[in-house]
């Protein structure tokens, strides 16, 4: 299960990382992306996967930003009594 450690040790011993390793990691990333445009995932180029990954990470950042903003506004509207209720609920 120490695939990550052995992989980095391998990368340290050979200065070249094999293309297979790269393809393996890229396909793993591809699985995480929300949209799979092509039917066969092996037809998607690595560059395309990385591009989609960048877009996906940016959209996740935006989503957390929006949710945090919404949460901040919600906290503004709850009054102290309700805040105390929330606090007691969360402390359990």
């Amino acid at each position: 299960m120490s695939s990550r450690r052995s992989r980095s040790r391998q990368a340290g011993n050979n200065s070249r990382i094999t293309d297979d390793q790269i393809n393996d990691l890229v396909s793993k990333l591809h699985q995480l992306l929300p949209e799979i445009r092509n039917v066969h995932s092996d037809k998607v180029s690595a560059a395309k996967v990385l591009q989609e990954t960048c877009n996906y990470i940016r959209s996740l950042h935006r989503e957390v930003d929006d949710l945090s903003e919404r949460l901040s506004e919600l906290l503004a509207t709850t009054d102290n009594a309700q805040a105390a209720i929330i606090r007691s609920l969360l402390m359990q």
Partner: protein
Amino acid sequence: MDLQNLNPSSLKSRFTARFLRALTEINAPKTISSSSPREIFQRYRRIKVAADKSMAYSVRSRRIWSRATLWRLRTRSRSRRLVSFGRRASVKTRTTASHGKENKEHHGAVLGVQAEELRELVPGGEAMDLCNLLDETAHYIKCLTTQGFCVYMGGLLCEGCC
């Protein structure tokens, strides 16, 4: 087939516990006005920091990106002058940059531009070789989705109490 060290249910619970604790501190008894735009914005920034902190501390130093985030958070809290507030600022770590460059060049022709873009998005990405970058990115994405879920749940909780 999960990544090593990633157990979604325990990561979620670790993150949620920390984040909700931080929320209670952010939502501590307010003074007179709690809904001025400035206060809302300040609370929004504190929530974002709390979300990043909770995420990074739930993963601790097991990942390069979490170490980079923790380092950045600690550095930021030490210095009062904030040059750029945002998780987008990349962190220069002390890892072997020369080794990373070599591997960058080998696969650089194929994935150069996209890999550079990715390096700026993933904390600590600039010093990673391509293998680490891809591996860290996968874990980072899983944690980001968990983070979004927990912030969303925090919002539902507050909404339910309004």
